[in-house]
């Protein structure tokens, strides 16, 4: 079986170049590094000024309506550049007690899928799966946050920026005491 076929079916050619896909993956990896090493101001620079950052609420629906697990009427977070900037500045302040001691995080970003957005040639739909391990202080307890991110990355002057992010958590009830971190 060649790389271009699955069984007797032929795969379509990649709709974005491998170079574009590599750039998008590099963006996601750089972003995860900034967040894990707590370089929040540097992370903020990766966001477009009209960024939309949303974490919708998931609930378990009945058979037949499961596609509405995310009804997109309720959110855990619904942020824009200004609210995200406020959150970042707080993390550099003396009184952000939820992050004192700071979370030790490791983000794994996988299953990256890049597609062009037909309406806007400079933007790409980038889906990825993530696992974010979070622990604080001396204990061995940890929270593991997981899910899928649906991002739009925008190419501006040869540079990618995050234009929107929707974080689809696997969780209905959040298994962590607060969302004092970025996903």
């Amino acid at each position, binding site marked *: 079986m060649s790389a271009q076929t699955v069984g007797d079916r032929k795969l379509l050619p990649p709709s974005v170049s491998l170079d574009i896909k590599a750039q998008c993956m590099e963006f996601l990896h750089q972003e995860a590094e900034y967040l894990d090493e707590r370089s929040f101001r540097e992370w903020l620079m990766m966001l477009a000024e009209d960024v939309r950052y949303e974490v919708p609420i998931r609930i378990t629906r009945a058979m037949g309506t499961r596609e509405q697990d995310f009804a997109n009427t309720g*959110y855990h977070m619904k942020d824009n550049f200004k609210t995200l900037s*406020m959150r970042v500045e707080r993390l550099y302040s003396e*009184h*952000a007690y939820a*992050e004192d001691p700071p979370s030790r995080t490791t983000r794994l970003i996988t299953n990256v899928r890049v597609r062009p957005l037909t309406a806007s040639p400079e933007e790409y739909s980038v889906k990825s799966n993530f696992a974010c391990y979070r622990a604080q202080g001396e204990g061995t307890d940890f929270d593991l946050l997981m899910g899928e991110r649906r991002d739009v990355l925008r190419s501006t002057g040869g540079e990618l920026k995050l234009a929107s992010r929707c974080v689809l958590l696997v969780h209905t009830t*959040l298994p*962590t005491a*607060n*969302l*004092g971190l970025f996903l």
Partner: protein
Amino acid sequence: MVPSAKNGPSRQAIEPVDDFLRSVAPALDRGGLPARVFNDTNIHALELDRVFARNWVFVGHETEIPSPGDFALRHIGEDQFILVRDDSGTLRVLLNNCSHRGSPVCRAERGNTTHFRCPYHSWVYKNSGEWSGAPLKKRAYQTLDAKQWGLQAAPRVETVHGLIFASLNPDVPNLNDYLGGMRWYLDAIFGLNEAGMTVIGEPQRWKVRANWKSAAENFMADAYHVPALHRSGQDVGVFPEIDSAGGAGTSRHLYFDEGHGMILNRGFLPAPMWHKTGFPAEVATTFQLDRLKPDQRDFVESHALTAGTIYPNLGLVRVPASPHPGALPVVFTYLRMWQPCGPDTIINWNWTLGWKTASEKFNEDAYIAALAMHGPGGIFEQDDSVVWTGAPQAGKSAFARKRRMNFNYQLGTEGMSEYEIDSTWKWPGHATTTVMGEAPQRAFYRRWLQDVTTP
């Protein structure tokens, strides 16, 4: 040798819970509360039986289930119930365990249905909870008394201003009597017009390592912590004069011996941009204040809720905040339920409310401000989630028990601070002159103690 009470507490590894509870009232009289009440499996079992299965507990809002057949899974104590509007429009609160073998009959958290069918043996119940049938019914259950085998239903369900409460105690006083003077204030908080308030989206839920009472007493009256724990609100410029929300401000306590209480402010907001109700003019013009009694109207035009607790585990908040520096403050309202999960863990449930008569933009702005400040991601509330972890740690500490460690509840006791009952208060409840005290918390724990020590 089996330790007995005669040996005295110092010679026993762990004092029996009945003896321990007898020591709590004298401690409260001295402005103390033993750490052990925040983490003890025996006390927790008493709470499930004598607090949560005895009183009225908040289960949801009418606007979440507007149509016949609409349902949502909810909790009273640690038991899971189906909150459902049946075909006749009646609100029911049904234990989510089949009467046959206990399997959950409802596995979706929200939805609409005419019946609940157990997957195990296909027993079927109407959305009113009545037993409706089973496979081979005529051959298998020829003489079954269907009336006896419906889902176990909460014996009492009542509402006030759209808030749905249920009680597992058939002898509980009616909801209005249970709320007592708090009902008068709920009119002034939620009854400002006939249309009322509506839930925005699904409630957020998140797990916090805390005892439920830490949350209840905090929402009820803990203004003193605001400028300390939440100082970052001032640091980042969204709450510029945070000291005004604390002991140094002009707020006061309002509380009841039944365990309910609130922090009331006398207006955080600048006139003339804001109406005397604490809302901007565009919303205030939709209020029908003539629905209120004249003295309720006087109250609404001079005071506003900041935060409060309806005993045992419902929180209310209405505060203004800017979602980011430079933005105008917007006032938001939410309901909070602390679902106990063992003595050291809670699931927070959070419902943000909008006015049905307000513009979509106002309600959306309020929702965004609420998420930025409160809820799982809110910059204020993130910090509460970490400080409340300490009480259960001390509560199970062997050393703290040996030392009979009491937490300090002396704020506002005789000679301690400028904090008195305001004898000029014309309206229901005990009002204090400032928030530099802990009288509501002590009243809450006295009510709680009465419950857990009464079989």
